[in-house]
């Protein structure tokens, strides 16, 4: 495998697993799919096939993956919604890699995406020279997916302007694209579907119309279900990042990661881990991804300017930046959290509490 690229598509990285699953297939395979729904599930949540370990790609919410696969099975399109950093694109990429062996039919939605990106456009030189012809046509990923009966991905759909989103409505309900220039209508082959992803909490997103929403089955991806899973994810990713960024600091210890994840989870969910006390959540996005970058940042700071080990002081400063985004509201909420919760957590937390309190005078 060549390594000159920063990142390979999922189906290239996990080629072996996909091949093994296809080879071991026993269940009926839906038309247009390369493996049965059960194998897709196994590819995503992990398992074992003929002695080959399948690595889990998405942890903690098997049922949501089942719902996502069942949705695609009914020819419906799938909309994955979630806060930033909840592995929406990750899941969508792996679903298409398993189902079609091809995760590259992607539209990357932006404010500049036009209707042509969704349907088709023309090679104008050829259009002028020869007039409209199939050869002069530039097909969008969705067009190609309909032709081949596969799944197209639509990333960040809510970043496109509403009018552009609307272009999808009739495609999804009628499963046809008409090409008036060629007096032709392209019917979608069996197996065609769209997996779209959208952010719920970010700037610069457009509300999706009810008509479009109705054409999707919506699966909301939550944050990791339990703290152990999240600690796991954070630790692995921080270690990977530290390796590739060559950070000159020690990896954060288990206790440190646990502290950060605990604080993030509690403020994110607005309730203490034991579920006994409700808290005021803060306005910042405290996703798993945020925790990872917070720790990586602290490592960079500690390595560059400190002792090479993350201290409570470093951590408090990083937390302050991550948690208190809106000075007035967040600061009150964070102070209350410090006094009501952290202060009473005992010896282990005393140092961090003191540093945080110092910053919140």
């Amino acid at each position, binding site marked *: 495998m060549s390594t000159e690229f920063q990142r390979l598509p999922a189906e290239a990285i996990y080629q072996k697993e996909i091949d093994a699953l296809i080879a071991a297939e026993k269940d009926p395979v839906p038309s247009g799919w390369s493996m049965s*729904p*059960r194998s897709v*599930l196994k590819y995503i949540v992990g398992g074992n096939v003929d002695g080959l370990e399948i690595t889990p790609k998405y942890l903690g919410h098997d*049922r949501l993956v*089942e*719902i996502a*696969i*069942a*949705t695609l*099975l*009914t020819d*419906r399109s799938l*909309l994955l*919604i979630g806060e930033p950093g909840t592995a929406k694109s990750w899941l969508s990429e792996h679903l298409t890699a398993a189902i079609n062996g091809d995760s590259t039919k992607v539209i990357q939605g932006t404010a500049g995406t036009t209707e042509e990106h969704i349907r088709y456009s023309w090679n104008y030189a050829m259009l002028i020279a020869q007039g409209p012809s199939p050869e002069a046509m530039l097909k969008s990923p969705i067009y190609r997916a309909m032709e081949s009966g596969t799944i197209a991905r639509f990333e960040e759909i809510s970043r496109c302007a509403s009018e552009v989103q609307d272009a999808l409505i009739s495609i999804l309900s009628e499963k046809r694209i008409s090409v008036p220039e060629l007096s032709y209508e392209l019917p979608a082959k069996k197996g065609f579907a769209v997996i779209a992803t959208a952010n719920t909490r970010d700037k610069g997103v457009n509300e999706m119309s*009810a008509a479009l*929403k*109705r054409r999707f*089955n*919506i*699966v*909301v991806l939550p944050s990791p279900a339990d703290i152990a899973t999240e600690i796991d994810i954070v630790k692995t990713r921080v270690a990977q990042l530290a390796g590739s960024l060559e950070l000159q600091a020690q990896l954060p210890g288990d206790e440190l990661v646990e502290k950060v994840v605990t604080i993030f989870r509690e403020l994110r969910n*607005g309730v203490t881990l034991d579920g*006994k*006390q*409700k*808290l*005021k959540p803060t306005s910042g996005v405290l996703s798993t991804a945020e925790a990872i970058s917070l720790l990586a940042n602290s490592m960079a700071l500690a390595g560059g300017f400190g002792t090479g080990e993350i201290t409570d002081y470093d951590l408090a400063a990083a937390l302050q930046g991550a948690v208190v985004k809106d000075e007035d509201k967040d600061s*009150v909420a964070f*102070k*209350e959290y410090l*006094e*009501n919760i952290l202060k009473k957590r005992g010896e282990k937390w005393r140092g961090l509490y003191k540093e945080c309190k110092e910053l919140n005078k």
Partner: protein
Amino acid sequence: MSEPVLFGVRHLSPAGSWHLLELLNRVQPEIVLVEGPSDLTDQLSHICAQETKPPIAIMAYSETVPIRTILYPFAVYSPEYQAIKWAHDNGRKCRFIDLPSSVFLAIQEQRALQEQRAALENARTADAVSDEAADTAEESMQRDAEPDSTVGQLSPSQHIAEVTGEDSQETFWERHFEHNLYAESYLLGAAAYGSQLRGVTNNEPLDEAENILREAYMKHEIEKAIQQGIAPDKIVVVTGAYHVDGLRSVNALTEEEIASLPKLPSQTTLMPYSYYRLSSRSGYGAGNKAPAYYELLWNNLQEGKPEHTAYAYMAELARYQRKAGHMVSAASVIEAVRLSQALASMKGFSVPSLRDLRDSAVTCIGHGNFSEIALAVADTEIGTKLGSLPEGVSRTSIQADFYRLLKDLKLEKYRTTVAQTLELDLRENMRVKSEKAAFLDLSRSFFLHRLQVLGISFAKIQHTNQDKATWAEHWNMVWSVEAEIELVESALRGETVELAAAFALKERIDECSTIDEAAAIIEAACLCGMPASVKLAVSALQRLAVDAVSIKEIAQTVHSLSAVIRYGNIRRLDYSPLVPIVQQLFLRACLIMADHCNCDNKAAGAVIDAIAILNEASLNHDFTDGERWIALLAELSDRDDINTKVSGFAAAILLERGMISNEQLAIEVERRLSKGIPADLGAAWFEGLALKNKYALIARLSLWEKLSQYLDTLDREEFKRALVFLRRSFSSFTAKERSDIAENLAEVWGLNAQQVDDMLNRATTDQELELIEALEEFDFDDI
């Protein structure tokens, strides 16, 4: 020789009912024997009465205290209920064959005693007693549940879920049994299931012994039926699947053995039940989490089409959503059904399970959010159905408990239709010997307050005006038929008055949405003497307090909780759970106070009240963060950009608490009352300062010197404006205080007391009247 048909069921299983009816129609037995306390057989006729509408429960309870109960709820789809009805409709005999309720209750009593002993050894705190009462009640519900002890780390039900790749054993059961209409499949499958379950369960020895005893007794009853000349193959036994194996292998009890069983005198009755109760009391057998859904399934099973349940479920859910004003298109309903079928097919089944249906509804109708359809799901799965019984059939344990308590607390004479007054003195009565007698009035108060919580109109408290008399209560007592009815209705909430009151409080806690309400519930729970409920309400309050933003609300809640903590000792309860919540509210108040002080004079009144309350709390409870409070007051007192009246009041408190010295006060007065500061601001500050410790102010001559100097600096117009505010400041002083102030000022101006007195008491001169009238023309700028 032929054998009786042993039909193992899961209680509350629609498919069990369907297969059982099919079997009964085929076998045409002469007698149907049903698992259930044998002394309850005489209630069978009531169960089949025309007016009886399930859900109902058969119930037995002990006549002695503490009340022990056993309860067997029946829904329309319960196999037992259908078997009883079949026998009735076809004129066959029917009997309950399990241990008599008196034996059940005796066993329960002994086990509870044993547990109590163990609990004492563990030195559990006093407030756990109430929990335990709840536990025992819970246990009585669970007595018939399939044993759930552990095999290694996983319980059998978790193990089944693991092995079958389902999310829970419930789903496994539903897929394999409830949707399965192949002949004989249920009979054989359930028996095999029960027998396997027996194999993997490590019961507690006591549970195991009880099971064997029950099975031996049931065997005895079956053999009795055979001896009475009924052909074995004309007997159908309906029992939990778990017992089928046991019934085959166990030896029947002999008459002597039966005579030697322990007994506790008991009463039996039927009571109306509700789907809500059926679902909220988990632990009892199967299929209880979603009674309304199982009824849907039962209706469709009778048509032989379990797969239609999916349509009915989605249609019901959509109907509810639409009624609540949400748009649900028919297309979404169709997509939801399709998705549920796809989910089922991924597991290799054709009929969706409840979990499939709910997840599909969330995805297609709820736009991915369960919260959007939570109410509709509750309505479709649990429902609000209430059972009913013919009049006069019910004599429930809560009624028995009520009458026993009346006798115990010597309140019987008040049970008349003539209103009487009862005066209680909650303090310990030192003249009597037993503890019970010493606190008789306190126990009465707890009891009557619990009745109030239950809404039983027997006793009403009269609020007396002596607000300091925390130990006295006056009650108006009058009995009515309505009270009796309200009592029977309360049976649905719990078996005894205490349990029912705890349940009622819990319902209120679940519903309450403001911290005022939660504080009121805490108060009610304290009055009822129920620490467990207090704890629940405290956590509800904590939850709500997170969103409460009004300083007024917070202060009021602190006030009422503080009162409960300070005066609550009379009720002999432990108030420590209230401490952290008061701390939290206090902290919150400190953090947001400064923002609230940026207000007009009108709003300042409320803020000042809040400050006064919080200051009182900080003085009364040393667990509050006093340091923070003083720092906050100093900040409020120093800041120039907030309402000056509030600043003045903060200074007054600091003065009262000795945190400001004379010199500091003098400097502050000079700063606040200097020329250039608008008169209304300065005077408002003074007004705030004068709200507290007037004597201390009057005694400080330096203060009045400053005030005098200030007045000297004002020109005529300014003076007129300041006059209005200063007059208002002094309006709260008494005549005596005002004359003291006048004397103070006189001293500053070099006059003696005699002259002041003359000045104040002589009649107003014409010249002065003119001046006052002239003021009416003055433009006060809406002050």
